[in-house]
């Protein structure tokens, strides 16, 4: 499973992209987050407030109850700000 982090999630986790092999009981995004947090304080900090974290599975916006499986691409990022200033 490929996990990608953007913006401050990348900075806080110290990781932009990684391949992970979570245990079989990790069935959805929420489970994946819980497992990632168990891997160290940087991940705990990155996922400290899930209200400010959005997720995409295989490049589609989705929710934390979405299932995840081996081979998926899971991306975590803050709410999008768009590009324009005005």
């Amino acid at each position, binding site marked *: 499973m490929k996990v*990608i982090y*953007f*913006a*401050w999630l990348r900075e806080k986790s110290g990781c932009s992209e990684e391949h992970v092999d979570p245990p079989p009981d990790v069935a959805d995004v929420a489970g994946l987050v819980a497992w990632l947090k168990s891997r160290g304080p940087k991940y705990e900090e990155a996922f400290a407030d899930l209200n400010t974290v959005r997720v*995409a599975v295989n*490049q*589609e916006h989705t929710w934390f109850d979405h299932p995840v499986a081996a081979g998926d691409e899971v*991306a975590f*990022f*803050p*709410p*999008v*700000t*768009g*590009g*324009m*200033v*005005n």
Partner: protein
Amino acid sequence: MIRVQQEDFDPGVELAGFATGNHAVGGICMFVGVVRHGSGIDIDGAAVGAMTLEHYPGMTERELARIEADANSRWPLEDTLIIHRYGRLVPGDRIVLVATASTHRKAAFEASEFLIDWLKTRAPFWKKEETSDGVRWVAASDADDIAADRWG
């Protein structure tokens, strides 16, 4: 057509090459977004200069294509073009271009405004601003959600 790129674009060149040879086109509407100086006077009063746009390669193109398809389903458009830049940009830099072509002007005007509103809320871009106090990630704006919501 969708283009996500780091380099600048030339609106004149894009306009000259847009929707050419299609005689059903009666009007072209083009919007160019520019990084505004001082647009980032933040809540602490610090002036914002440059900013860096980060995006999600792959997903960005998918989202923009979806937004483009949505516009085409709502208005009778003959052609559309979306160019969005990423990377470090300074005040005065062009950041986004939207062009729409239609038989009658109303569709072109409305669709371009729709595209810009949705670009701000749906496209996976994140903005880091450089202020006199340092750099900071910009939070999503409720005002932009409201602007997009009016399209239903």
